[in-house]
């Protein structure tokens, strides 16, 4: 088992290297001069601009800059933000908790909602419950997340006034009142991600359950005289969740994509919002760091999924 985990971890490293290389190459080869913001400034002459470029190391060829970036990043130094004038890492450390809170709670809630719905839908296939569930999950993954967000804002924030429109990041949770405020302001962004996630997860769970229900081992369990819920939960569900784990991991980039949208819609100051502002400010070090962090998180979750898969299904360890 430990050998399997080790092999998976070793495979993740080249993946990350290639991704960081691709990202860096895109940023470096893109037309446009990072110094162009000074081009119209009369007090910055062309000579000064050249000096600034040299001081920032931008006069070197980009493969060398990539190696430098990589060695620095490996030591935990992601560079300085052009716009905020502080280390990128500090900037990201300020922003990442909000993102992880919103994404994480949406994800957990989605699991809690989707798995029971998927199980019931599969056990009672073609029942009214199944049909309604299927219909809603189709709606869930057909609706763009910004549109769900807009609808929720319009209904629950503008018309009913139940939740705040804008996420206040200065709020500190100190007592029950502020905790309640935090829950209220998280409700809408979390719901948007929840709808997106639940739809896909319900479908995955349902079809995985349907694949397992006609299996021989299920018939064996039933003929042993086990209670219906024991068969469904202990036998069918635990086997059905194996492929679901992989599908969840493959969906991680989509969740972070959704987070970028919700953060911009609700003004949550997470790293998704930071990415958009940095792109608009041509703040290359921050853009590079955030896209890379998204890649790291994706690879990390894939790794976790692979390991969980290995634990759940011993066959994959030896292939």
């Amino acid at each position, binding site marked *: 088992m430990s050998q399997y985990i080790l092999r998976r971890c070793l495979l993740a490293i080249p993946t990350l290297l290639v*991704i960081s290389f691709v990202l860096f190459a895109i940023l470096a080869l893109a037309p446009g001069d990072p110094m162009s913001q000074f081009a119209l400034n009369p007090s910055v002459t062309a000579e000064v601009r050249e000096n600034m470029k040299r001081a920032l190391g931008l006069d070197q060829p980009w493969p060398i800059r990539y190696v430098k970036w990589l060695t620095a990043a490996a030591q935990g130094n992601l560079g300085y933000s052009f716009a905020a004038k502080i280390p990128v890492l500090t900037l990201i450390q300020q922003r990442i908790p909000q993102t992880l809170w919103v994404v994480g709670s949406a994800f957990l809630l989605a699991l809690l909602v989707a798995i029971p719905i998927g199980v019931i839908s599969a056990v009672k296939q073609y029942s009214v419950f199944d049909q309604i569930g299927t219909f809603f999950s189709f709606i869930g993954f057909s609706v763009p997340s910004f549109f769900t967000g807009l609808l929720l804002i319009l209904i629950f924030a503008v018309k009913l006034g139940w939740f705040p429109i804008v996420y206040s990041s200065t709020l500190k949770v100190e007592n029950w009142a502020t905790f309640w405020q935090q829950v209220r302001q998280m409700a809408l962004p979390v719901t948007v991600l929840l709808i997106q996630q639940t739809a896909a997860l319900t479908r995955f769970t349902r079809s995985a359950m349907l694949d397992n229900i006609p299996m021989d081992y299920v018939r064996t369990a039933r003929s042993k005289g086990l209670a219906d819920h024991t068969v469904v939960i202990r036998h069918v569900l635990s086997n059905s969740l194996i492929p679901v784990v992989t599908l969840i991991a493959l969906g991680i980039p989509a969740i972070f994509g959704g987070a970028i949208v919700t953060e911009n819609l609700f003004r949550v100051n997470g790293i998704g919002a930071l990415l958009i502002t940095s792109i*608009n400010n041509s703040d290359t070090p921050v853009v590079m760091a955030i896209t890379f962090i998204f890649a790291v998180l994706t690879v990390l979750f894939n790794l976790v999924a692979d390991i969980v898969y290995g634990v759940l299904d011993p066959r994959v360890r030896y292939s």
Partner: protein
Amino acid sequence: MSERIIDAIPTVEPSAAVKQLEQHLSSTPRTLWGDAWRRFMRHRLALIGSVTLIFFFFAVYLGPLFYRVDPEALDFNALLSSPSLQHPFGTDDLGRDVLARCLYGGRISLAVGVMAMLIAISLGTVIGSVAGFFGGKTDQLLMRVVDLFLALPVLPLLLLTVYLFRVPVVKAFGPVFGIFLIVVTMIGVLAWMTTARIVRATFLSLKEKEFVEAARCVGIGRSSIMFGHILPNALSPIIVAATLEVGNAIITESTLSFLGVGFPPDTPTWGRLVTDGINYLQTAPWLALIPGALIFLTVLSINFMGDGLRDALDPRSRL
């Protein structure tokens, strides 16, 4: 001799039951695609979805021939007017007719969906075929590339490339067509992996079959075996994946526009119209809601159609 025997057989009136059976007999034999068509027609939601989709395509491409309102015509006497007979979808902040803009914008949104799908499907088909047919080292390498692409942060990468490369591309191809090219290419290039996996799996399971051996024996070339003999067997899952990909591409494009990195502001794609409408969410909600609903309905129809196609084309569900 034999003719005389037949002549001798007395003609018997067929019984009522036989007549009833004869009604169900068709003179033409049942074919693969005929069966699929029949099953598809029985899937009610898929049918509704297809009709809606065809209606949207006609409305968007032929509608402007009948609804002769200039999407760019300003009318300062009717700013932000709510939906009425004169302006069925209302007008925006400059008095432009929203219906005309939605029809014009739909052309771009649907074209993005279809073109991105074609790119993704062709890439996926070629890569999947090569990996599955040649196997060995080629297969391993290509599958690593698939894993790599699956770990890429799709939305950040799209935002980045569109933002960084739009200036030279727009200079070379014009503002609308230039952005169209980058958006379509990037969405396609980041979405071929599922198709590649499906095609590869088909190739792996079929390349040792007798009919391939037979084709090889009669001296048919490698590419002809790949694309003429094996690939048609993967056609059904490819069609399903293609359908769903159109929906995904439409959502992705609208998300890009929503985040401000899509088509230029004066180009009314559906996503762009939603973004422009957000500022008037409280006073004129239809500005954002109508184009948003159009995206949603289109994608929902596409997904229902894909589901119907999956059921119709799956040989396991053959009656």
